[in-house]
């Protein structure tokens, strides 16, 4: 009925709306009395109602309608409903229901929300409204006590009922029982409690307190007509007794109502300070502003939605043209055609402009993914009973869409770890004289050609003593040696792929499993992972990823007749290789550069193009060029190659090979003349060299 394209549009629009809705619910949770989020929520459910109806999901539309009406009620009568935990959770769950419909819709499956779920929802929403007449158990106000107690025809009972163990539909069963009793009297309290009883939330038995003109045997007769009752006991109570009970019930009713009012600042796991609220509002005001523009019907179309697939194709085609342009340039240089040369030169500027624009298209704000983490942290904090203040910084930073997607699972892993294992429980934090509320910060910024994403917690930090123990236990170091290792080195070990298997489960207070996977993922992206941690102060994981990896400037060079490339951004300096400056210390090759001994690697040997022994190396004169590459302040390496070629723009095709699990290759590229060139992953090579150096015994 609805075209595939339209369905795609429906899915993406609805997803956006659901995300926005989630944000509003979170806001309500932090401040249940705030009017604006409730209004926004009302509006989004209204829009969702329309969207789902248009797409043909009638039950989903009714679903949204119930919420819309519910929220309208809250909007208009502020006192009729208290935004309790139960309601908040129900709102979140409703989003999941809608998301599941979307999930089906994406594959063309038009399965709508189940009819019974719809009715369940309507009943639940009704039951929250204290002004509705659904409840059988009534709160009797103190001013009515004397009338009731003095009325001679009133009898007071405590009724105990046990249901048959085979009873499944407890809510309906209780409905039928309460209905029957309410026809002949009034129920004024129940055990376990009125709310649970209305929901059918009992194990098997319950008690109710009943006021009625009926006699004992009449009540029995009434209940005899109802199925699934295993046992019933009706006890008559005298006035004095019941008077006391009525007072007790009144107290309990009042407490229930109080519990649902927003005095929850003490129970919140988010801090509710004015300052912070404003800060977050500031960020979110920006989002909602953009969104309102978008949903404003009939306005100018200032933006279009583009399918990501189309962007990818555009990117690829453009990449191919860049290669062709380079070819053209090279040929023209050889032919020395002035006229054509000028034309091609003039192409340079528009090309750069298009390149920039296309890059811009592929960029998204990290916000789109990072705001979702708010919900994640909320849920994990709730699950672990921790108090967390979650701060997002730099959400405006733009990053390649693909890279952002790849960053998601590592970040989720790190964020969860921070809550599970990093940040201590409020009790423990208090003992350590820390703020009970732990800080978890996700900060994004750009520097040089890279994006930095920091996950910081002020928790217990990495237990380096445990790390040292593990290294000793695994025989890598002796007790004395391991004490000599500084934290940087220890961090390297934590991230090594082999480390988790070395230590087994549960190392560094639970972190470790998956950290290696995180490090791998980042490496695959052409990035790196840094750890900074201090005991009881906290831990920061810094993910550094290239801003965009599609088109790079690289230095081409020759090793044993094969072409390789290194991205310019990693190259410090290039100089002539001088034999005498190379020396072996403990079987590791070093090169003396500006009075520093830097680890070096003979690429011909590394790639084993020829079998070269150490002695041959000293005599080997083919290598002419040394390239100094820097990973960070602590880690550099010198790559010894045969010949230097040109610097050029290359289009990187990421390397995923079935034939080799070489970690040294970042990707490949096709040059002007059609030849294939492999791009070195210098960061990985440098890291590996360091590791071997430390490991070497």
């Amino acid at each position, binding site marked *: 009925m609805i075209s595939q394209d339209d369905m795609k549009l429906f899915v993406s629009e609805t997803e956006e709306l659901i995300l926005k809705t989630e944000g509003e619910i979170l806001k309500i949770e932090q401040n249940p009395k705030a009017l604006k989020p409730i209004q926004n929520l009302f509006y989004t459910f209204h829009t969702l109602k329309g969207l789902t109806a248009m797409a043909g999901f009638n039950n989903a539309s009714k679903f949204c309608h119930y919420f819309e009406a519910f929220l309208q009620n809250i909007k208009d009568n502020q006192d009729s409903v208290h935004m309790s935990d139960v309601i908040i959770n129900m709102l979140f769950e409703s989003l999941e229901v809608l998301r599941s419909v979307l999930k089906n819709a994406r594959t063309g499956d038009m399965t709508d929300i189940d*009819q*019974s779920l719809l009715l369940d929802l309507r009943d639940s929403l009704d039951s929250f409204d204290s002004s509705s007449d659904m409840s059988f158990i009534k709160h009797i106000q103190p001013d009515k006590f004397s009338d009731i107690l003095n009325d001679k025809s009133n009898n007071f009972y405590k009724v105990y009922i046990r249901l048959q163990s085979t009873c*499944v*539909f407890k*809510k*309906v069963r209780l409905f*039928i029982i309460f209905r029957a009793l309410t026809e002949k009297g009034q129920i004024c309290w129940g055990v376990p409690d009125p709310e649970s009883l209305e929901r059918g939330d009992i194990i098997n038995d319950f008690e109710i307190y009943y006021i009625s003109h009926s006699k004992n045997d009449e009540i029995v007769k009434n209940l005899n*007509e109802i*199925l699934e009752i295993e046992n019933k006991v009706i006890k008559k109570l005298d006035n004095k007794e019941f008077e006391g009970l009525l007072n007790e019930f009144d107290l309990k009713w009042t407490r229930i109502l109080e519990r649902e009012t927003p005095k929850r600042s003490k129970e919140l796991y988010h801090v509710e300070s004015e300052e912070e609220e404003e800060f977050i509002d500031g960020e979110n005001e920006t989002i909602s502003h953009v969104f309102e523009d978008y949903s404003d019907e009939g306005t100018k179309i200032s933006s279009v939605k583009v399918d990501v697939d189309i962007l990818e194709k555009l990117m690829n085609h453009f990449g191919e043209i860049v290669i062709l342009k380079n070819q053209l340039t090279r040929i023209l240089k050889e032919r020395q055609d002035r006229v054509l040369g000028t034309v091609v030169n003039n192409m340079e500027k528009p090309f750069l402009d298009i390149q920039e624009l296309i890059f811009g298209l592929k960029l998204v704000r990290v916000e789109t993914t990072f705001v979702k983490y708010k919900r994640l942290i909320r849920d994990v904090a709730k699950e672990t009973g921790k108090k967390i203040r979650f701060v997002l910084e730099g959400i405006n930073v733009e990053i390649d869409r693909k890279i952002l997607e790849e960053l998601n699972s590592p970040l989720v892993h790190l964020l969860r770890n921070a809550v599970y294992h990093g940040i201590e429980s409020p009790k423990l934090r208090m003992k350590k004289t820390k703020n009970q509320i732990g800080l978890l910060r996700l900060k994004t910024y750009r520097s040089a050609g890279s994006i930095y994403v920091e996950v910081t917690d002020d928790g217990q930090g990495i237990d380096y003593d445990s790390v040292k123990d593990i290294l000793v236990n695994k025989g890598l170091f002796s007790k004395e040696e391991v004490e000599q290792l500084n934290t940087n080195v220890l961090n390297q070990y934590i991230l090594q792929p082999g480390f988790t298997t070395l230590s087994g489960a549960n190392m560094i207070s639970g972190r470790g499993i998956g950290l290696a996977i995180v490090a791998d993922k980042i490496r695959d992206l052409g990035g790196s992972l840094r750890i900074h941690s201090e005991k009881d102060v906290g831990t920061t994981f810094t993910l550094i990823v290239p801003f965009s990896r599609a088109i790079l400037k690289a230095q081409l060079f020759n090793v044993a007749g094969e072409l390789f490339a290194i991205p310019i951004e990693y190259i410090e300096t290039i100089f002539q290789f001088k034999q005498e400056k190379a020396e072996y210390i403990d079987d590791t090759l070093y090169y003396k550069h500006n009075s520093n001994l830097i680890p070096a690697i003979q690429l011909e040997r590394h790639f084993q193009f020829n079998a070269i022994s150490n002695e041959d190396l000293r005599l080997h004169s083919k290598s002419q060029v040394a390239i100094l590459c820097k990973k960070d302040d602590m880690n550099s390496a010198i790559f010894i190659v045969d010949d230097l070629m040109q610097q050029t723009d290359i289009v990187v095709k990421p390397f995923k090979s079935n034939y080799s699990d070489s970690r040294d290759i970042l990707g490949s590229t096709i040059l002007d003349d059609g030849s294939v060139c492999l791009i070195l992953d210098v960061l990985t090579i440098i890291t590996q060299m360091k590791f071997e150096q430390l490991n070497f015994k």
Partner: protein
Amino acid sequence: MTKNKKKVLVVDDAQFTRNMLKNIINKTDFGEVIAEAKNGVEAVELYQKLKPDLVTMDLVMPEQGGIETTEKLINIDPNAIIVIVSALGQEALVLEAAKKGAKDFIQKPFKPAQIEEVLERIAG
């Protein structure tokens, strides 16, 4: 004679279920099936014609479902005694039917003893 036997109208869109119910009810001493309806519309017609003591009502039926039919029957006769015959997992629908006036409910698969209980306790 059959003086205490309740007159039952069985409403279900599946003949198999109708037969099964009919057999069980007719075997008991307490009830006899005087008519069968295969959908809600038939149910309303037959009810008005025959005024049974008890109606067993299936929930999910074509054209007019159990909830709507219950509502209609209660409108015609507020004292109509309707027992919902439901499948597992239909609690919300059963509750809805109860709110519309159904007296009680049983779940499939049921034992003959349960039907007897219904006839004894509930019907009129």
